[in-house]
């Protein structure tokens, strides 16, 4: 027993030993299909999301390889223009709506957020399950559109093409509409959880940076997604009733549609990247074994990005025919996102300085992330410069830009996070050797795929072309070969991760020596995360303190039997 002294009030806490091999954990506490499909346990829900997004990443990735194969030569190799259009639309839509938006928040976020806060679950566990089901239903609709008449509008659904085309626009957009609600509910749930469910002593200044990032992301999700919903609803009405708000043939304005769409979809790119920033903060802190440099700068820059990122949507419309005035304003605002982002990058580097750096697979991904995302980010600045954007808009330069930020940024961070938390989620260690090998293969394959796209883009190769003039062939072939290398990299990952499940070494509770609460419970965690109510007295990255300082807690029954529990929470939050 130790007493954390507070001014006047004393809160009785004690050190708990971490349970290394509890007989029951969240994976085997209940069994049967039903115990998964109807679980309200945030960890199981997180895993179900993980499985779904892995599936959709695979589907989207295979579609990408098909695209690349078609583009190997200018002639028609595999498919005609119509089919190609459907495939890139599906690739884009699946990757964006079914994979990347739910990826880190819904899979890793769900799993980790409550544990990191020292809570037993998210604030609304049933709502959480509901959002998984809503996501699944939305996904079913999108897949149904595949069976009916795959959509060919591009993932942006621009009017009037999306009103005129014969493909299954309604099914697809309705699916995305539904999935939007899943995203909104997850965001709401997380915001409330962060506000209300923190463990005693978990002040705002002690939150892990991953939580700060998830918080900023959730704010964007709640803010922007409803606008996507209404946009798609109007698009559906446009097709069914011909209401004429977006369709010029009925008196509408197509550029207005673009405002509506990008008002969501630009902030959405920060829904994709900000959680990745959170993961990177954890990885760099842990593997440098050093207090994260500029904690507040990193935490607040996430919110700054969320805020500024909401004002810049028009940079996708510089040549769309919007007014010159708004073009200039949007360009001006666009650059400002670069500043908080830069702050993060420099703070991470400063964290590595004088650290004790262990280049394990997750850290390798973090470094790859820093490199690739910087390229993606600065090319974003290039695109934001109006005069240059006129040349680069809707060319492969843009395609390269967004793959560098989404694939090179978010997916790399996701892979880093996946490897980092794999032992925690499954209780098994993967092969470090193969982990590093595949990271290197992916790094090489990625650059081979997308660097040439910058060059052909600035030379004028338009995007969404199924054939092209011969001048661009070399670049396209390099890119196609690169994408196959990428594919091989992912196959290796799939193999050794699967292998680790059967044959992997057992993981200890804290294989990386991290300090956040997720590492203060067994691997895999207990069904209710902890045997005790954690009490927090240190920052999330206080590597100068002994690890035992991080296992303080109050025994659960004592805690719940207490008459003044609400008060304790308050006092300890302020004074412990």
């Amino acid at each position, binding site marked *: 027993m130790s007493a954390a002294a507070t001014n006047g009030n004393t809160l009785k806490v004690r050190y708990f030993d971490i349970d290394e091999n509890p007989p029951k954990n969240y994976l085997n506490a209940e069994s049967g299909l039903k115990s998964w499909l109807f679980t309200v346990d945030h960890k199981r829900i997180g895993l179900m999301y993980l499985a779904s997004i892995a599936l959709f990443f695979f589907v989207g990735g295979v579609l990408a390889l098909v695209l690349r194969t078609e583009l190997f030569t200018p002639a028609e190799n595999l498919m005609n223009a119509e089919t190609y259009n459907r495939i890139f639309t599906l690739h884009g839509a699946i990757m964006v709506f079914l994979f990347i938006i739910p990826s880190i928040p819904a899979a890793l976020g769900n799993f980790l957020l409550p544990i990191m806060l020292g809570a037993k679950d998210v604030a609304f566990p049933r709502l959480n399950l509901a959002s998984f089901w809503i996501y699944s239903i939305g996904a079913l609709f999108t897949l149904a559109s595949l069976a009916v008449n795959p959509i060919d509008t591009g993932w942006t659904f621009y009017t009037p093409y999306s009103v005129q085309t014969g493909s299954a626009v309604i099914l697809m957009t309705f699916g995305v509409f539904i999935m939007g609600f899943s995203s909104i509910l997850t965001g709401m749930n997380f915001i409330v959880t962060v*506000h209300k469910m923190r463990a005693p002593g978990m002040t705002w200044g002690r939150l892990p940076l991953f939580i700060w990032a998830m918080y900023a992301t959730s704010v964007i999700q709640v*803010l922007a997604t409803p*606008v996507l919903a209404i946009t798609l609803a109007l698009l559906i009405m446009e097709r069914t009733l011909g209401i004429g708000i977006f369709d010029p043939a009925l008196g509408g*304005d197509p*550029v*207005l549609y673009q*405002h509506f769409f990008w*008002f969501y979809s630009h902030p959405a790119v920060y829904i994709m990247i900000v959680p990745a920033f959170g993961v990177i903060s954890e990885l760099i802190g842990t593997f440098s074994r050093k207090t994260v440099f500029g904690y507040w700068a990193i935490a607040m820059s996430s919110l700054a990005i969320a805020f500024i990122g*909401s*004002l810049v949507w*028009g940079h996708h419309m510089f040549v769309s*025919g*919007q*007014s*010159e*005035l*708004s073009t*200039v*304003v*949007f360009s001006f605002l666009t650059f400002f996102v670069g500043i908080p982002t830069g702050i993060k990058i420099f703070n991470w580097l400063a964290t590595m300085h004088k650290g004790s750096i262990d280049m394990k697979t997750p850290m390798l991904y973090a470094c790859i992330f820093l490199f690739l995302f910087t390229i993606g980010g600065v090319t974003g600045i290039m695109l934001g410069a109006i005069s240059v954007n006129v040349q680069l808009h809707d060319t492969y330069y843009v395609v390269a830009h967004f793959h560098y930020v989404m694939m090179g940024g978010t997916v790399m961070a996701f892979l880093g996070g996946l490897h980092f938390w794999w032992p925690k989620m499954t209780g098994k260690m993967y092969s470090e050797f193969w982990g590093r090998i595949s990271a290197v293969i992916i790094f090489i394959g990625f650059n081979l795929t997308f660097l040439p796209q910058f060059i052909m883009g600035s030379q004028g190769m338009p995007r969404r072309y199924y054939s092209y003039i011969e001048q661009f062939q070399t670049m396209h072939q390099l890119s196609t070969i690169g994408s196959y290398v990428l594919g091989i990299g992912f196959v290796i990952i799939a193999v050794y991760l699967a292998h680790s499940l059967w044959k992997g070494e057992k993981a200890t509770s804290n294989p990386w020596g991290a300090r956040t609460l997720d590492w203060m419970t067994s691997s895999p965690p207990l069904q209710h995360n902890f045997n005790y109510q954690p009490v927090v007295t240190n920052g999330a990255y206080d590597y100068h303190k002994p690890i035992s300082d991080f296992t303080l807690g109050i025994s659960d029954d004592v805690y719940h039997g207490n008459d003044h529990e609400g008060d304790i929470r308050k006092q300890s939050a302020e004074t412990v």
Partner: protein
Amino acid sequence: MSAHHIIPLKTLLSTTFALVVLTVVTVAVFYLNIPAPFDVVVALLLASFKATLVAMFFMGLYYDEKFNTVVLVFSLLFFLVFVGITLLDTNFRDAGINVWIP
């Protein structure tokens, strides 16, 4: 337990009364035929006032945790951003770049 504040009956009734009166005023103002841009301004001011009354007393924001008010105000600001910046396009399409050149 500030969140559980019981709103006095009198407050609820006078709020309702004020809302009904304001509705009548809104309609009356309409028949006054105020010239073009100001009619909307007046109508919106009245509506905003009514909305504030509902939010403060019916929805209990006045007694509630302040953060909930922050949430509401923030959503309105965000909406204004959406409208404001979009209008920079839709209302200046024919102005040309010369808006910028003195």
